[in-house]
C-alpha cells in the first residue's frame, strides 16, 4: 500500500477549521479515486458535496472519517492528524484506539442507515452512550429518548428497525449519531436509499440541525436541498474538486463545462 510520504505541516493555530484536509489522495488498486484534495470546514459551516456517481465524493467523506485510509496528504480533526503519526520522521498508522480518539467529534450517517437490527430504536441510540460514555441504563435511556424526540420518533422508541420505514430508520440513525454529541456530522447520501415520499422528513431533520448551528458535510444528490441549506457546495468529478462556491454562485454561474453539463443533465431529469 502506498504510504503518505511527506509530512504536511499541521494547520496553523489561527485556523479554526474543525476538519481540514491537505492534498489527500486515495487509490483502489490501480484506480485513483481521489487526487490531491484540499478541504476545510469551519465551525457551523454546512458543505454539500455533489457530483456524478463515481466522482469520489463518498470516498472523500470516508477518507475524512478514516473509514478508508487515505494514501497521501493529511486530514486533521480539531487540529489533530487523523490516522497517522510521525515516528522518527516516518509516517506510520496510529492504533485504532487513537483513530477513535481523534475522530470522536465526528458523527456519521450512512446511505443504508446501518442500524443494528437486533436492537430497538432506543437501544440503537443508547448502545454507544452505555458502552463508550459509560452512562447507566437509566441515564442513557433518558438521553436516548431526548435524541429520538429531536428527530420526532419518541413514540417509536420500542420498535425494531425492521418495523420502521426508511425515513424513520434514517432519523433513528441520525439520533444515534447525535447522542454522542458530535461537533461535526458527516452524511453519506442520507436520502439516496429512500422512497421519494420519505426524503422530506429526513431533509427536514437535517435542516433543523443546520439551523441549530451543527457543522455538516453532506454528500448528496438533492440539489434543491444543497441550494437552500449549504453555505458552500463542492462539485467533484473524477476524483478532483472542480468547483467550490456558495450555492448561489455555483448553481447559477457554473464556471466549468463539466459542472454545466452535470447541472443540465440534472435539470432535464427533474424540472419537466
Amino acid at each position, binding site marked *: 500500500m502506498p504510504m503518505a510520504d511527506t509530512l504536511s505541516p499541521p494547520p496553523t493555530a489561527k485556523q479554526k477549521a474543525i476538519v481540514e484536509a491537505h492534498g489527500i489522495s486515495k487509490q483502489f488498486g490501480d484506480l485513483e479515486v481521489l487526487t490531491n484534495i484540499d478541504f476545510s470546514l469551519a465551525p457551523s459551516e454546512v458543505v454539500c458535496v455533489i457530483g456524478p456517481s463515481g466522482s469520489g465524493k463518498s470516498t472523500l467523506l470516508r477518507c475524512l*472519517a478514516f*473509514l478508508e485510509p487515505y494514501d497521501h496528504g493529511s486530514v486533521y480533526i480539531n487540529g489533530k492528524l487523523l490516522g497517522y503519526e510521525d515516528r522518527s520522521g516516518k509516517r506510520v498508522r496510529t492504533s*485504532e484506539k487513537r483513530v*477513535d480518539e481523534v*475522530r*470522536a467529534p*465526528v*458523527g*456519521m450517517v*450512512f446511505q*443504508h442507515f*446501518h*442500524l*443494528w*437490527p*437486533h436492537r430497538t430504536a432506543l437501544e440503537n441510540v443508547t*448502545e*454507544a452512550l452505555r*458502552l*463508550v460514555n459509560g452512562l447507566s441504563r437509566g441515564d442513557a435511556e433518558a438521553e436516548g429518548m431526548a435524541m429520538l424526540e429531536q428527530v420526532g420518533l419518541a413514540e417509536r422508541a*420500542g*420498535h*425494531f428497525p*425492521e*418495523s*420502521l*420505514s426508511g425515513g424513520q430508520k434514517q432519523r433513528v*440513525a441520525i439520533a*444515534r*449519531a447525535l447522542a*454522542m454529541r458530535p461537533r461535526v456530522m458527516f452524511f453519506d447520501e442520507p436520502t439516496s436509499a429512500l422512497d421519494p415520499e420519505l426524503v422530506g422528513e429526513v431533509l427536514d431533520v437535517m435542516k433543523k440541525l443546520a439551523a441549530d448551528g451543527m457543522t455538516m458535510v453532506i454528500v448528496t444528490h438533492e440539489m434543491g436541498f444543497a441550494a437552500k441549506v449549504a453555505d458552500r457546495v463542492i462539485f467533484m468529478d473524477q476524483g478532483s474538486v472542480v468547483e467550490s462556491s456558495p450555492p448561489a454562485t455555483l448553481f447559477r454561474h457554473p464556471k466549468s463545462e463539466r459542472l454545466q453539463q452535470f447541472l443540465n443533465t440534472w435539470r432535464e431529469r427533474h424540472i419537466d
Partner: protein
Amino acid sequence: MFDIALLWEARGLILQGLWNTLWICFLGCLLALSLGLALAALRLANPRLFGYPVACYVEICRGTPLLILLFLLYYGGPSIGLRLDAEIAGVTGIGLYGAGYFAEIYRGGFKSIPKGQLEAARMLGISPWHTLTRVQIPQMARLIVPPGTNQLIILVKESALISIISVDDLTKNATTIVNQTFHVIEPYLAVALLYWLMIELVARGGYALEKRLADRQPRHVTQ
C-alpha cells in the same frame, strides 16, 4: 423372536452406556462450540494473522476421519507423553473435530452481517470487543441455530466411534450385550432408539432456541 426381557436384564449396561454417551457428547459439543467460536472470532479479528492457520485447522478437521483423530489421541498420545483416559480422549476428539466445523458455521454467520453495521459502531467509538460481543455475536447466534443444530446432531451420532477406543458408551455396551447374549437385534435396536431420542431432544432444543431468539425481536406492525 424379539426378547424384551433380555433388555431389562441388561438395563445396567444400557444405562451406563447412555450416561457415558450423554456426558461425553455434552462436554465434547461444549468444547466444539466454544473452541469453534474462539477460532472464528480470531479469524475475524485479525485475518492476516489467524486467517491461514484457522483455515488449515478447518480443512484438517473436514478432511480427516474422526476415528483417526481418536486413534491419534488415545493410542498415539502416550508416545508424546499425553496419557488420556479413553473418556477424556473422546471428549477431546469430539471437541477438536467439531470445532473445525463450528468455526466454519460461525464464519458464515459473521459474514452475513453487513459491514456497514460495524462501520456505524466504529464511528460511534465502540471498541472492537464490544462490537464483537454486542453487535456481531448476537446476530450471528441467531443465524447459526439451524446449521449449528444440524452439526450437533452429527457429532452426537459420530460419538459412537468412541466405542472403538474402549469407552463404555451406548454403542460399546450394546456390543457387549450382543456378545454376552448372542442376540443382535434387540440391543442394537434399543440403543438406536436411545440415540434417536437424544437427537430428537437436540433438534427440539434447536427449534425452541430459534423461536426464542425470534421472539426477542417481535414484529411490530408499521403504521
